[in-house]
Structure formats: C-alpha cells, structure tokens
C-alpha cells in the first residue's frame, strides 16, 4: 500500500510539473512570436514605404533623363546603355514586389503557431487538472484507469486542435506561385 501511495504521489507530481513547466515554456514561446510579428509588421511597413518612395524617385529621374536625351546630342551607345539600365531597374522592381509579400505569409504561419500553442496549453491544463484529481491513495488498477483516461483526453484534445489548424501556407521560398485560369 505504501508503494502504491508513493507512485500515486509521484504521478500527480509528474503531471502537475508537466502542466506547469510546459505552460511556462509555451507562454515564453508565445511572447517571442508576438514580438517577432510586431517586428515583421513594422519592418514591412518601413520597407513598403521606402520602396514606394524609391520607385517614385526613380520614375521621376527616368523622365528627366528621357527629356535630357531628347534635347541633347547624346551618343547612341550612351542612350542604349541608359535604356538597358532602365530595363534592369524594372526587373528589380518586379522582384522586390514579389519579395515584399513575405509578411502576408509569415503572419499566417505565426498566427497558426500561436493557435497551436494556445491549444497545447489547454491540453496541458487538462492534464494538470486530471492529475490533481488522482487520489493519493489509489491502487494500481484504479491508477491504470485514471492514466488511460488522461491519455484519452489528451489524444482527443490533440485531434480537435489538429482539425482546427488547416495549413494555408505551404510555400518554402519566395518565387512567384502558379497561375491557373478555369
């Protein structure tokens, strides 16, 4: 009886510790993700604004160059070089627009991870609560029933969580995606 009492106490402590420490670590992970999302949001706002300003300045500059070319006697190879450079700028602008869409995807991935963390915290909370309800004086067969119940609760919660977390972002690079017309 003494041995059974000891193992019941140990199992209660184990489940309680798992819930408590697990929740603490998840809270830290959640805080870091919120901070990451804030930084990414601010970064994209700055990048977007700078991109617009740079593009506006380049367009203006190209107009001035075109006007200057029309008025001045500029060697043909210089005109060709300027036009080629203009084409290169266009390619970089397109590439930057594709790259600047990263935050839409990172935001979705972070939100999904946050929901998973919240769900996992609920699972741990349940494990802790179920553990607290185990009487200290429990015989081995009753203990087995209680542990099976906890395992089943955990499995069910995990399944519910997985169903709620549809993965909407599968991209692993920033190349432009497929296009299909129906």
């Amino acid at each position, binding site marked *: 009886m003494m041995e059974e009492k000891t193992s019941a106490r140990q199992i209660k402590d184990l489940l309680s510790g798992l819930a408590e420490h697990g929740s603490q670590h998840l809270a830290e992970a959640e805080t870091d993700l919120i901070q990451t999302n804030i930084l990414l949001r601010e970064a994209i706002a700055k990048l977007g604004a700078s991109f617009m300003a740079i593009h506006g300045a380049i367009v203006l500059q190209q107009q001035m160059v075109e006007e200057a070319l029309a008025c001045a006697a500029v060697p043909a190879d210089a005109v060709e070089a300027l036009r080629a450079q203009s084409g290169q700028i266009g390619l970089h602008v397109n590439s930057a627009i594709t790259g600047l869409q*990263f*935050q*839409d*995807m990172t935001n979705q991935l972070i939100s999904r991870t946050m929901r998973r963390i919240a769900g996992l915290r609920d699972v741990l909370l349940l494990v802790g609560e179920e553990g607290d309800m185990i009487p200290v004086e429990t015989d081995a067969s009753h203990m087995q029933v209680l542990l099976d119940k906890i395992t089943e609760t955990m499995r069910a919660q995990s399944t519910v969580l997985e169903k709620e977390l549809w993965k909407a972002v*599968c991209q692993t690079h920033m190349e*432009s*995606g497929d296009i*299909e017309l*129906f």
Partner: protein
Amino acid sequence: MGKTILAVDDSGSLRQMVVFSLRAAGYQVTEAVDGQDGLDKAKEQVFDLVLTDQNMPRMDGLSLIRALRALPTYQKVPILMLTTESSDEMKAKGRAAGANGWLVKPFDPQRLTEVVRKVIG
C-alpha cells in the same frame, strides 16, 4: 477611363503591392480589407474584376465569391483568387464557388497584369 478592379485582402502589405502593380498597368483599383468589406463595396459599384484572398476575418474568399455570384450584377464579372492556398482541394472549391482563376502567392507583378489583361483586357 481604365477598367476597375476590387482587390480584397486582409494583409495591408499585400494590398499595397497589388494596388501598386495594377495601377502601374493602368487599372483603377479599390481596396477592401476582408470579404465583408469587399461585398459591401461590390454592392456600391460594379467592378470589372474582383481579385480576392481566401483566408480573411469576417468573410473568407470562397464565401465572398458565393455571395457575389448570388447578385445579378456579378454573375458574369470575372473573379480571381489570389491566395497562399495551393491545394487541388481548395482550387476545386474555388471553381465550384464561381472563381474564374487561381493565383498562388507570392505573385510576380508582370504575370499578374498579364493575367488580368487576358481576363478583362
């Protein structure tokens, strides 16, 4: 006057890039922050094309398409999905809802304008 496009996306940075690309190609673009906002704006004005994201708060893209297709004024207006979603399952749902095309993010502005031009000229 250029053709009109309604761009629906809950991501401000994404909308900024869509608007920039399509305005540069000569289109008049109106922004909506989610499906419900898109539906409200579509009821105020009939656009030549609707470009919508899928996962948004309040109303998602598929629900928006179904709601638009229920309006007599939007039965023939082209609707394109622009989303991170790329599964065949989602594409089939989009097609069934009434979408005319599916573009997976991130988009290349040149390819986007080519598709839009192909669809509405």
